[in-house]
């Protein structure tokens, strides 16, 4: 198998603040192959944005403690100096953000902003850069690019602005595009246009894509593999099909059961996840999800689960959960059939003492009692 384009290993990003140490990203590992699409799903405080900003080197500050490794095309980005990172940023790795209106400078024409993006990585004349900008605007579907290149951001609609951002991101032919909630602020029909555009460009230009979002629908459309993040960790990782049809983490189940969808019966009840996202300064002991997990056992409050292979048919499928796999699969089968977690618990016995294999390894076979 070819060497992945981006390989993140055990990345930790902690911020020292007055209130304590914010463990924004707490040991995550993932990889993205050339031309492939990875989806990172999570809610606010999951660490999804911070991890990608760290790949770009945008979280380096005096109070940030970053450890682990980020290998991009053979280069270790964490060890790279600021000048090297600046060459990578916008050149080999590009990023687009959520709100295209506030992400473009309101006082400069979009053409000037595009030209600036191109010339800071390529030694070309202004005229040549301008031609390239017009070319990119055409590529992303802006009508009449020769005229509109001299427009200001506020003269474009939301969808058009996001296309401009995409054009600016891809103007230097990056190998990787990181899209952080690119369609959250857009209308649904515009969202569809933008997602279609990103996918088209991914295939035409062979750009790898990391799509960060909280919207499970979006990630189902775009991603081949998905990482589900919670409280700074990846709690489940797998192919898109696996995550949606055979997930094995209670948080993933919770997400899937709590969202209203168009393809399930209308009267199916929404099952919310109890409680609130945790504080990143004082994370819960043991498994960070345990205060909100309907299937929690005493042992889960003391042992911290590790992301490990689930043993299912999907070779890349990994889960960080202390429940034994047979228990997980039975629970999901019940939930999928339309039962609530309470009903599922009645049906499926959850062992008090047995844990998943690696957890047993952690505790040396001795499971802490209640």
């Amino acid at each position: 198998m070819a060497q992945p384009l981006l390989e993140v290993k055990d990345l930790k990003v902690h911020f020292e603040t007055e209130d304590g140490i914010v463990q924004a990203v707490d040991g995550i590992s993932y990889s993205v192959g050339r031309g492939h699409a990875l989806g990172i799903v999570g809610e606010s405080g999951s660490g999804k944005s911070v991890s990608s900003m760290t790949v770009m080197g945008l979280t380096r500050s005096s109070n940030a403690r970053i450890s682990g490794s980020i290998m991009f095309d053979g280069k270790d980005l964490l060890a790279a100096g600021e000048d090297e990172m600046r060459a990578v940023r916008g050149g080999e790795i590009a990023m687009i953000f959520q709100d295209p209106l506030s992400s473009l400078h309101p006082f400069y024409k979009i053409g000037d902003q595009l030209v600036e993006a191109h010339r800071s990585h390529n030694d070309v004349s202004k005229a040549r850069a301008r031609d390239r900008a017009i070319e990119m605007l055409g590529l992303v579907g802006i009508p009449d690019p020769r005229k509109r290149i001299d427009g200001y951001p506020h003269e474009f609609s939301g969808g058009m602005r996001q296309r401009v951002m995409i054009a600016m991101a891809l103007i230097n032919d990056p190998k990787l595009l990181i899209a952080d909630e690119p369609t959250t602020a857009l209308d649904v029909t515009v969202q569809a246009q933008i997602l279609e555009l990103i996918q088209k460009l991914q295939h035409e230009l062979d750009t790898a894509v990391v799509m960060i979002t909280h919207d499970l629908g979006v990630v189902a459309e775009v991603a081949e593999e998905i990482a589900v993040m919670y409280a700074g960790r990846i709690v489940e990782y797998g192919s898109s099909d696996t995550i949606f049809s055979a997930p094995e983490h209670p948080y993933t189940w919770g997400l899937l059961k709590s969202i209203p969808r168009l393809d399930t019966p209308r009267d199916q009840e929404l099952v919310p996840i109890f409680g609130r996202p945790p504080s990143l300064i004082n994370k819960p002991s043991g498994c960070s999800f345990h205060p909100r997990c309907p299937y929690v056992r005493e042992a889960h409050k003391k042992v911290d689960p590790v992301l490990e292979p689930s043993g299912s048919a999907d070779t890349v499928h990994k889960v960080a959960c202390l429940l034994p796999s047979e228990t997980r699969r039975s629970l999901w089968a019940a939930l999928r059939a339309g039962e609530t977690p309470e009903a599922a618990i009645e049906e499926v016995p959850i062992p008090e003492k047995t844990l998943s294999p690696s957890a047993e390894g952690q505790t040396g076979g001795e499971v802490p009692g209640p």
Partner: protein
Amino acid sequence: MSATAGEPLVEVRDLEMHFPIRSGLLSRQVGAVRAVDGVTFDVLRGETLGIVGESGCGKSTTARLITRLLDPTGGSINWEGRDIAGLGRKELKPLRREMQMIFQDPYSSLNPRKTVGTIIGEPFVIHGVETDERKRKGLVQDLMEQVGLNPEHYNRLPHQFSGGQRQRIGVARAIALKPKLIVADEPVSALDVSIQAQILNLLKDLQRDLGLTVIFIAHDLSVVRHTCDRVAVMYLGKIVELASSEELYAHPRHPYTGALLSAVPVPDPRLARNKNRQVLGGDVPSPANPPSACRFHTRCPKFVAGTCDVDYPELSPKDGGNVAACHFPLTDEEIARRVPTAAA
């Protein structure tokens, strides 16, 4: 047509809201932004009516017109048989007890300097319902429990609560005087996914317990399908389709509704891969200068020149019970092809 056959609580007829555009030396009106341009519908007692549409369609403006936070420039709003469109502030005050709004942004819709107890207790004070402070506190704490907040947090300030909790505070304030109508303007859009379901369930429970009628404004079609009995789809200030939830999602008749449903990303990769999606091109035209006749004709895949841009299509019943404003509504075959989530 709908399952909940109650009598109308609110009857909206030809409602209009035109914001003037002024220019020139004497600030003369040169045009208008036709935010709401002739909207007619009923809100039946006890139902949840959803109003969906994208930005600029006029749904939020319609919500504010019904609750009379804005003065309409045309049309009538009949509340229990009485036209409230032209009423002044004084006459509206008693009505405000009966209709309340829940807003989108839990971070900016609560006064950061007032305690939760004061915020929820304000309706009692404003309408002179309970002047005794101790009794009021009791009522407020009951409300807090009802919406899932800890009554002991009576003296806390908004910033000490999370987004979901703040939205609960907004809900408590809205139901304080047991209104008949709640207008919820995008109540869950600003919340995390795992919290949205909590608030949606809360609203459903409260509606059942208090016998509320709810107008639910949203852009998220999945949420609307789940929570609403009937749905109105708006585009550029007009209603283009009105149907029960079942009917609308199973067989949308207006091409715009079809495009909206087709565009919604579904959390099922297999469905996503096999989708023959209808991606609507172009942008929404300006509400200051809407297209002639059918507003949607500039982007409609079924556009027929000479008809759609000349004859305005009035809302009329179509196949299956939907009421739509279209000369060439979607056929079952087109729906099956383009809207993967429509029932077979």
